[in-house]
């Protein structure tokens, strides 16, 4: 049974407002999703009823906060199907998680001549930390290309030539934030394992949009952001295989991450505490767990189907009804991210005009500058859907794009 998607909108108070005289049509979900009332309530309940620091507290509030924070870790483990909650590190988000791995694992395990394999469709957050690591260690970067044309699929024809034994880490995005492409994560992880390379999967665009199972995927690290999946900003999860996390040195030092401290040296707590120096983001971790409950109540399979349906309808309608438009990504089997380039109209002008119709789009390079250059585009406009979007909203988007096209053609 599909959830009644139209009724779901009532869970999101922010959607019930007008922008420039029109009902808000929020299509910037790849940047950040909206938050259901239950997540907002989880935050305010924490601050109203049991705000307290975790772990060392003996008093009632601290114990309640500690319990809820650690329950959020268990919930996150279940959400990703990690083998144990010890494999769950709370981070500030995807970027923070990638930087943690690049520093704690990378500095210890990479040397000059080693190769970090990436793809041409990575977000800057899964590119720049590896550039910094390469600069520190002398390791080299290598890229799996995107096929020519606008489908945006990875060109895996020469994978064996790229994924060689020199590759120590293969980091790739599960779902592209620009192209809407869903990469074959399990297949890529299996190929990496064959040459002894570790894998890091950037699941920022897939978490909360489709089922995720780190054991079935076979990845070594996986990173997500809470705010793109109905959770708060400033919280994310790094999944790491337990043996890897235990072997890694700390990333940041401070309280909570030690087992004993002397004036000249300290001993680390085991993972995941080793990676959570200082007072953690308690409230947001708890609210993220509530978001995970909410998403699983809806059903992630159902959400994925709905996303894909909306994306397919939007892709087909925009392509057929707006003459001359370039729509990126594949026509089918894609996520809810649909980017397009309207000839004669720059993305920022498109976004400004759509905003006058109450439609929230994003325009620019989407933190994908190298990919944009390869596609011969300075920027694109992007509509990104989530489960609270409807087919009626696609109709509004198409009508607005028609108007925008006429505006710049006039």
């Amino acid at each position, binding site marked *: 049974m599909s959830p009644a998607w139209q009724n779901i909108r009532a869970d999101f108070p922010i959607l019930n407002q007008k922008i420039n005289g029109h009902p808000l049509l929020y299509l910037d979900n790849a940047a950040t999703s909206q938050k259901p009332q239950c997540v907002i309530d989880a935050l305010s309940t924490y601050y109203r009823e049991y705000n307290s620091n975790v772990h060392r507290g003996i008093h009632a509030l601290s114990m309640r906060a500690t319990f809820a924070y650690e329950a959020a870790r268990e919930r996150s483990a279940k959400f990703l199907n990690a083998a144990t909650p010890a494999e769950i590190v709370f981070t500030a988000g995807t970027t923070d998680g990638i930087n943690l791995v690049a520093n704690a694992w990378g500095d210890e395990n990479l040397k000059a001549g080693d190769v970090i394999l990436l793809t041409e469709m990575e977000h800057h957050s899964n590119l720049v930390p590896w550039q910094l690591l390469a600069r520190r260690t002398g390791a080299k970067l290598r890229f799996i290309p995107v096929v020519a044309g606008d489908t945006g699929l990875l060109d895996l024809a020469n994978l064996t030539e790229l994924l060689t034994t020199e590759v120590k880490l293969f980091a790739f995005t599960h779902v592209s934030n620009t192209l809407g492409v869903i990469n074959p994560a399990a297949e890529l992880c299996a190929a990496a394992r064959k040459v002894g390379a570790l894998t890091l999967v950037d699941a920022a665009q897939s978490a909360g949009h489709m089922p995720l199972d780190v054991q079935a995927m076979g990845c070594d690290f996986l990173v997500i952001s809470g705010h793109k999946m109905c959770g708060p900003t400033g919280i994310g999860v790094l999944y790491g295989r337990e043996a890897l996390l235990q072997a890694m040195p700390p990333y940041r030092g401070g309280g909570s991450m030690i087992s004993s401290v002397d004036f000249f040296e300290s001993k680390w707590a085991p993972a995941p505490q080793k990676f959570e120096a200082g007072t953690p983001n308690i409230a947001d971790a708890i609210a993220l767990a509530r978001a995970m409950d909410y998403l699983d109540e809806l059903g992630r399979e159902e959400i994925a189907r709905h996303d894909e349906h909306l994306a397919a309808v939007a892709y087909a309608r925009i392509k057929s009804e707006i003459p001359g438009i370039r729509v990126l990504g594949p026509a089918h089997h894609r996520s809810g991210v649909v980017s397009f380039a309207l000839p004669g*109209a*720059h*993305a*920022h*002008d498109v976004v400004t005009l759509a905003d006058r119709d109450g439609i929230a789009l994003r325009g*620019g390079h989407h933190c994908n500058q190298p990919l944009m250059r390869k596609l011969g585009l300075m920027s694109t406009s992007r509509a990104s859907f989530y489960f609270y979007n409807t087919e009626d909203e696609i109709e509004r988007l198409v009508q607005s794009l028609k108007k925008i096209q006429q505006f710049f053609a006039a």
Partner: protein
Amino acid sequence: MHDLTDLYQTVILDHNRRPRNYQVLPTANRVGSGNNPLCGDEVTVYVQLDGNRIADISFQGSGCAISQASASLMTLNLKGKTIPEAEAITGDVMKLITTGNVKDDELSDLAALAGVHQFPARIKCATLSWHAALNAAKGDAKPITTEKGSD
């Protein structure tokens, strides 16, 4: 309620569609460039400086309608001006773009940029080429960026 025609006046749309002085200037002896890392806008301004005077000026670049039209208008308004004159005009235009107040008729077609101030996210689109032009004319080779830090 800000009307879109405040932002996209006929003058803006016209200059976006047919940017004036859009070329590499063969006689240029100064070049200035600017970029907006947040949106990817890029502009290069070519200046032929004769003594203290901007004898000729042109630009090339890519960006939104506001940035292209503003750059086009910039070339028309700074051509033939001395550096102090160009600085004064640029100062007036910056005030116009950020406050929307048109001082007097002197700014003529530049008044089309007055609507930009109602769209704070777009102000940098309009100011980039003017800064790049002054940079070029004053011989400062450093590229202009609209952001202090990097993206």
